[in-house]
Structures are given as structure tokens and as C-alpha cells.
């Protein structure tokens, strides 16, 4: 019975209970952080894809000859791989398919003294909304294409 008299040996029940309580209490923020991290990875991945898609589209529009760049607003339905920008131009899209993204292009003219000096290009990429939810996240890139003539 001498062994039972030792005060510094083994793990007591009280100790285990306190540890479990602490573990439970402090795991909540840890799990929350990890959960937010996982969501962040997903968001970053989605945004990277969306930005890449926006750049891909913007580059194509920027590389088109000024006169072949149509003015107007173009919806996702009009922006299809292998299809022309619109009926007035032979210039065609070459874009990567992605069912999770909705593309939108707005092209307007910027004039000075009656002459169109630039076309302003606005590319908007939205995510396909989840069922029952509205697509609120989007990426927008804008640039100018100069009239060299």
C-alpha cells in the first residue's frame, strides 16, 4: 500500500476531466480556423480560375484589330469558343470551357473631338450560383484598346 501513498505518480481522473474540458473548449476556434482555411483554399482556387478566365478573355479582345472589336454588351450565351465576337466581325473566341463560370463583356467607345480614340473593355466573370442562391461573387477587369489609326 506504500505505492498508493505516492502523490506525484500517474494520471488522476480529475486531471483527465480537466484536459478533456480544455480540449473541447479550445478545439472550437482551432476547428473554425481550419474550416475557414479550407474554404479559403477553395475561394482562392475559384478566384484564380476566374481571373485566369478574365485575363484569357481580355487578352483576346485586346489583341483584336480595333475595327473588329464590336461595341455593346455581350452575355455568356454570346461568348462561346469558336464563335465570332459578333456577326460584324470574323474575329473568333478561343476560350477554355468552364461550366462553373458566367462571362460577360461590355465594350464602349471613348471619343475625343468626334473621333473614337479608345474602346473601353470590361470583362466580368461570375460564378454559377449554387442551387437556390444568387451569384454574388464576381471578378471584373477593365482595359483600353487604342485606335492606332
Amino acid at each position: 500500500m506504500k505505492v498508493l501513498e505516492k502523490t506525484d505518480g500517474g494520471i488522476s481522473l480529475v486531471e483527465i476531466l480537466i484536459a478533456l474540458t480544455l480540449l473541447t473548449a479550445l478545439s472550437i476556434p482551432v476547428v473554425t480556423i481550419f474550416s475557414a482555411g479550407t474554404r479559403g483554399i477553395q475561394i482562392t482556387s475559384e478566384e484564380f480560375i476566374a481571373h485566369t478566365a478574365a485575363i484569357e478573355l481580355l487578352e483576346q479582345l485586346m489583341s483584336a484589330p480595333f475595327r473588329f472589336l464590336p461595341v455593346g454588351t455581350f452575355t455568356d450565351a454570346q461568348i462561346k469558343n469558336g464563335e465570332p465576337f459578333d456577326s460584324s466581325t470574323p474575329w473568333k473566341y478561343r476560350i477554355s470551357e468552364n461550366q462553373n463560370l458566367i462571362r460577360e463583356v461590355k465594350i464602349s467607345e471613348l471619343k475625343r473631338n468626334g473621333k473614337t480614340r479608345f474602346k473601353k473593355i470590361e470583362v466580368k466573370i461570375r460564378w454559377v450560383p449554387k442551387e437556390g442562391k444568387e451569384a454574388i461573387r464576381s471578378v471584373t477587369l477593365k482595359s483600353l484598346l487604342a485606335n492606332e489609326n
Partner: protein
Amino acid sequence: MNSPFFKRGFILVLVITILVILLFLGITLHSFLVQQNYNVHLLAYSEVAHFLAEAGISASIRSIRDSLEKSGIIGGGQNPIFEILIRPGPLQDVSLMSIIKDTWNEDLAGFSREVDKSAAVRVEVWLRGFSQTETDPSKWVDPVAKQGWLSVESTGEYRGMRRTISVRRRIWVGNVLPPVVSKFTLQVKDASKGNEGHFNIIRNDYDGNLTDGPRPFIILNHATPESPHERKSVSDVISDESDSNVFRRRGWIWLGGKKIRLNLTSGPGAFGEIFHFYDVSNPNTFQAIKFRSPQEKLPLAFLSPLSLPWDNHSNPKEVPFQLGHLFLLEGFHDKSARKEQNAMYEAKILSLNEQNTYGAKSSILHLFGDARKGFQSRTKVFGKVQAAFPRFSCVDVLPLDPNSKEMFNSQSPRPFYFLPSLERESFSLSLQIKEFLNRRVGGPILPLGLLFQQFDEYKKFMSCVLEYPYVNSYNSIQEIYSKPALRQFPPPTTILSEDSGSQIELKRGDVLLYKGNVEPPKLQEVVESRVQQEFDSISDFWKKSFNESSHALELNSIARIKNPDKIDFSLPPSGKPYPLKVSGGGMIILDQGNLTLRGVELLSPKEALTVVLVNGDKVFFETPNMNQVNIVAPRAEVVYGSVVDFWGSLAVGSIQADSRTQGGYIRYREANDPTKENYSNFYKTFVADQDTFWYESP
């Protein structure tokens, strides 16, 4: 069981440690993801900044080029940018925005604001990355020569991200005058072509007028009243001439290869070169000088009066004479009123041996100009170049007895006692020195042995054909201008002496331009390093450089023509009017083929044209038109179908000399002189036609 891991409180510590680690990992992951997300945005914003920069360049490049053309950097001409480029020394990066008219940046700022509040575009023009290209004095130093870039830089800005795109074009700054050569009127690599008398083919009379056959090339090493640009009045030339260092300001001459002998042409006439010794400024009163040998240099018999039998045999007696030594210097003359050939060997004063060695014809190369007032053009001559000319020596007889003196002085022409040219074996102490017309004039009966005991002593004083380094004439001409009481030959003061040209030095102010051989060993390398544009064929060159509306050459650069078909390059080209007018000069480096000159006229004194033949073996003067051009053709021979009229620097391999030689003028253009400040007139800046590359910086 004594391990601390099983002590009380251990589990609590373990749990807290694990939680802290997990918390730390969670926070790190979160920060990392936030940063990643931010970076994704930055990547996209950078792309947009790049697109905006591109739009800036595209929108403004035309205005910029218009502005640069107006400022003159594209298309050449004197302008503030040109002034920056031709500043000597290193050129740091410099913005041109304060010089050119910026009409685009305000517009770009307005348009970019319409894209986004954070968007901005600005396009600037810079001179960047210049390095000096000619810095080695053993090759050539040109503090102005450089290469660098004209950089149009567009900076786009979007949501804090900035991208700059540069469209760059190469700029060359180089001089169109050939290095080293432009200090020379004439360079001939192999002048003698193995025959030291190669150029002595002119038949002329005593006065320096030509009889028939070949005519001489008169080489003028300074500006004259006849120069097409940068003229100089006669009085200015004469004023310059009196300066003993005038050679520094003049075009120099190099006749390379083995020894070459130029027989000076007799007389003060059209082609006479007697101005090497005598003042011919007024040919109507021209008088040859009797050079008197200094008494102290003569043998003993000349020092005091001698009693000698006189030549009046009807009244034989000895009379006292004071003897001296004098001589006349003369040029070569093949023909006279009395003698069709070898006129200078009349009276047998000069020996048969000299006749065989030198002949009586004179040289077609007149290196120091002609006898007209203001056209004597002495300069520095490099190489083994000898001038040959006869010295007619005589004993100067002064009768001291009144009777003899009276007889002597009443003679016309004046009695002369020539010391004939003798070979060693013909020398005899008993040989009589006679009056040259064999007259009895009261003069002495004079045996040679009374005056000279040895042939070697006699040889120093006898008549003969003298040979001196050509450049010695520079010193004797100085004697003419300084007018000493007693003219001596050779003159007591040596300004210039023979110089092979192994170590010449050219300086402009304190800048050492060149130090090395008169034939620059790296000339071709330096010239090729200046090339600003290249053409495959001669026709390509003319298409680009000939202005059909003004009928003028507008080169304004340093161009290389490869010409693999070895077609002759003609100035002007066939089918174009003579002479070729040059409104924009430059340098043409012809890799293959020969050159035909039909006349070249520079429309502005600030232009120069140089043609370099790399492998060509012929420079042909086809017409008598003036050719205002510099030629560097070290492998070529100058040949001609007419009189030559050349104004510039001529560097060739050899010069044809035969019965077809019609002579002419080779005139130095003083503006070519690299040691003078006006050398800067002939720089050409050239901006490449094509954008060389796009350069993007973060």
C-alpha cells in the same frame, strides 16, 4: 515509472501544447490563404496595368514619332536632341520630355480615369543605355561616337499595380569621316610599285610649261579661293604660309611602300615647282637665287685671294682673284627651245651617269601645290619620299685687278665657271675649270687641283642632282618667307625631317585621337563598327537613299552595301544626271566591287560623303567633274578616263602613272581635319527603322 511523462499534470501540459500548435498552424494557414487570395488579385491587376501600358503605347506612338520627327531625331538634322547626342563623353540616361512636344499624356490620363479611378497611363521618351564605341587610341578615339536606345516607355497603373513597357530602337552616333585618313589629303599604300621613279613621266620645259603627254596631279593641302566650300582668300593663305607650323592645320601626305623619288618640275610656270626654293609670288620678276656656300665650309683655297694667270692670252699675267662657291637650284626639264629631250643635260654640266639614273622628266605628283600666289601648299610628308633636283654649282670669280674686273663685268651673259658633275674616275687635279661658254673674259685659268685635293671634297661642291627627303622643301619654303639676309641650302633650321610615319599622333585639344602607324591597322574594324544600316545590293541602296524628286542623295547615315555580285558602284548611278547632288551625306562601305566617280557635289558645307571600298581594286575617275568625296580604298589603284578633280581625302593602294595620265587637282578639305572643332559637323545620328524589342519591367 519515474518518467516525468507519467507525473501528475502531464496530460494538461500535453493538451495545451497540442492546441497551441494547432492554433499556430491554423493562423499560418489563414494568413497564407489571405495572401494567396490577394496575390491572385494582384496578378490580374498587373495584367490590366500591362494592357493599359500597351494601350498607352499604341495610342501615342504615332504622336511620339511625329514629335520626334519634328524635333529632328528621326530624319536627321541639327536639333536639341542631336546636340545632346553629340556631346562628347559618356551619356547618362536622359528624358526627352522637356524637349519634345508632349501632346499625348494629358489625353491618356483622361481616358484612363474613365476605366477606373485607380487607373493611369503615362508615356515618356528617353535616351537610355548609351555606351561609347570608339575609345582606344591605338584604333581611334571619338568621344562623341556612341550607341544606345531611343526608348518609348509606357507605364500603366491599375489598383496599385504598375507595369512599364518599353519600345526601343537602336541609335547610333558616328562620324562619316574616315578615322585617321581624314587628316590626310593623300595616302598611297604602295606608291612606287617597285619602281622609285614610277611617277617621273612628265615632259616639261624650263619654265614649267608642259610640252605633251601626261600632266601632273597638283595636290593642295589647304583651302584655296577655288574650294567649293570653306574657301580661303589668297591673303589668308599667304598669312598662314608664313607660320612655320602651318603643317599642323593642313592635310598631310603619306606615300607608303619602298623609296619613291619625285623629280621636281622646273620653272615658276603653270606646273613649275621651283617655288620649293624661290619666291615666285611675282612670276614677272622671278629671279633665281644664287645660293652662296658659307666661306668657313669651303676648302682653304677659297679663304684668301689667289694670284692666277688670266685667260687673256694676248697679255699674259697673273692677277688676283677672290674665289667663292655658289650654286643655283633647278628643277627637271626634258625639253627646251633648243633641245627636244634631256634639255637639262646641255653643256655637260650634269653627268651622263645622272642622265641615265634620273632622266630629265619630272614627277606627276606635285605634293606642295603649284606656283600661283596662294597655292603653295607645303605640308608634312610621311614615307620614304625623296625630292630630286639639279644643283648647278660654280666657282664665284671676283677679279680684284681693275683691268680684269672691267673685262669681266662687260660680258653678257655673265661669265660662269661651273663645277661639272664628275665620276670618281674622271676626277683629275689638272682638269681645267672653264668659263661655261668658253670665252676669254679676263677670268682665271683654274686647274681643279688648286681648289680641291680629293674627289670626296669636290663631290660636296660640284654640280649634281641632289636627293633630299621631300619634306625638306618644307624647311626651304620657310626660308623664303622668313627672308634671311643670306639664303642657305639646306636651310640652317630644320622644322620637319623625314618621317616614316611609324608613330603619328593626332589630338583635338587635350583628347588623344590616335597614336600609331600612319596606316591605321584597325581602320576597317572602326569603320565597320559604325555601320548603321545594311543593304544587300547597290540597287537597294539607291532605292532607299536617292530622292527621285530632288535628284539628290539623302543618305544621312553610315551604310554598308554587301554587293555579292561585285557590281561597280557609280556616283552618280547610271541614268542619273551628273554630278550627283548630295543633300544628306554619310559613309558608304562597299564590301565588294569597284568605284566609278562621275562627279559628286555636296549641297551644304555641313555635309560630307565617304566611300570605303573593302575589297575593290579600282577607283575610276570617269569625268572631269569635281568629286567632293572622301575615298578609302587601300587595295585599289586610281585610274582615270579624264582629268581628276577631287576634293576631300584620298586613301588608295596605288596611283596609275603612264601616258594616259591627265593629271588634275587633289584638294584637301580643311573641314575634314579631325584635330579641328568643325569635325563635329559630320556626325550622323541614326535611329533604326524597326523596334528592336519590347521590354517589360515590374
